């Protein structure tokens, strides 16, 4: 498969739309566990990215530059916890695909592995601490394993999104160890982590974008 810069931008646009729809739901999760703003933060960040997509990035054909600016824009717009986390993801992903006008299977794999590694490094969270890492790490692991056997990105990423979903769901039963919710103790049980949810949504949106792009 091949992804063009236009398709990469479609992915980002789809995330923008999706975050607007999921904003209230993400705030609701964060109200139970944290300070209730996760949806607002994601919305502010992605709206800023959207402005760049419609402006500076309108004619940009370099996927790496698009991802880099998306990351930097997101960070400058929101700060917060997820600013540095997602921004690092997109910026590290960008570095992994530097200079690429189109992304083939290998580049796409490298992008997402670097994306997840960057977030892990920035936040220093481990699986089981009730964060977005519970979504992202199983996804990256599944992607790497499957891709090593098949070299087929779409098939591997489809598996990765399934692993991400399981990971996300698993946070419901976890005691929080990181971020605001870590002070809740027992009271953190029973609610899904908002960052685990938003990161699943991003992965899932990428999958639907490239699969619908492929059928075109």
């Amino acid at each position: 498969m091949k992804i063009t810069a236009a398709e990469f931008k479609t992915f980002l646009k789809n995330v923008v739309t999706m975050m607007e729809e999921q904003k209230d739901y993400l705030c609701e999760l964060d109200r139970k566990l944290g300070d209730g703003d996760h949806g607002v933060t994601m919305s502010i960040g992605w709206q800023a990215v959207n402005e760049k997509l419609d402006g500076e990035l309108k004619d940009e054909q370099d996927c790496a530059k698009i991802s880099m600016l998306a990351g930097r824009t997101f960070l400058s717009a929101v700060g917060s916890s997820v600013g540095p986390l997602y921004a690092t993801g997109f910026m590290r992903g960008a570095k992994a695909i530097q200079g690429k006008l189109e992304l083939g299977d290998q580049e796409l794999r490298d992008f997402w592995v670097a994306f997840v590694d960057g977030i892990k490094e920035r936040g220093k969270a481990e699986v089981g601490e009730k964060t977005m890492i519970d979504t992202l790490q199983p996804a990256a692991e599944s992607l790497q394993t499957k891709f090593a056997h098949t070299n087929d990105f779409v098939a591997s990423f489809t598996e990765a999104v399934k692993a991400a979903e399981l990971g996300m769901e698993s946070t419901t039963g976890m005691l929080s160890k990181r971020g605001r919710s870590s002070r809740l103790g027992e009271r953190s049980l029973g609610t899904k982590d908002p960052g685990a949810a938003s990161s699943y949504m991003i992965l899932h949106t990428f999958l639907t974008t490239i699969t619908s792009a492929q059928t075109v």
Partner: protein
Amino acid sequence: MKKLINDPTRVVEEMIEGYIKAYPKHVRQLAENDRALVTAKETRNGKVGVLIGGGSGHEPAFIGYVGAGMADGVAVGNIFASPPPDPILEATKAIDKGKGVIYIYGNYAGDVMNFGMAAELADLESDIRVGSVLVTDDVASAPKEEKQKRRGIAGEFFVTKAAGAAADKGYNLEDVVRVAQKANDYTRTMGVGLTPCSLPQTGKPSFELADNEMEIGLGHHGEPGIEKGDLLPADQVVDRLMHDILIDMPVESGEKVAVLVNGLGSTTNMELYIMFRRVEHILRDKGIIIHRSYVGSYSTSLEMGGASVTITRLDEELAAFIDHPADCPLYVQK
């Protein structure tokens, strides 16, 4: 909840605009980044720069504490969200006078990452030395053995005060950091929430409590506390807060302390004085000397109802810094 605002997505911008216009002789906005405010009087040459910041919604913290004897600059985030590295970095460059800059901020994942990135960039790009002190005064937020995991709440006022005074007295960066760290080590806070606040953009209450309930040990962003309990009379609430504080940080008879009874937003001065009265009884009974008292809304959570009590132990050095004068838009001390 009802608010006197215009566009909910622009509350922080409009607040900053109003604030700057109300105190043009005190603060100015940097051309490089509109979320970076610094003292209008320019940091003295040779003085260590003091930089504070964090999410909005805690006013008068943090914007109100830029001025003589306190901070030189502040980075302003969205509501309850750490500022990104850019405004932190720009403010750092503006207030560095060759002697380095101290960052003082609450221990939250977001702030740690954003201030951390800014400190790295200040060093790499601009060769500015940065020292960081993370405020961890909230007794309720982690057990004593893990104080480094605790979050920062109202006690940040005293840490900023101590660091601001030390910098004003000409201490070097290492010493300002040492003083701020000591102030943090000597400070404990615990709070109680009665009514929630709501983000302008969602309008939804941050938590729900029955009419006869209170949230003990809640965070100052409306994060749930450690437990819900029955709403008790003020004296019993204070007894509980003071008990937890003094178990965590024993204070000897004859020692001096500074006290802050802080309102979280909609709690009246009347209630805060009633609470302070009980704090005074408890300390007096133990022979602990109140060196200076602060009662009011020093660090809020929008319009949340509730209050916190902060106790800072004072050695000679800290006592002098607490007495040091200050002249900020929202806090003046002679």
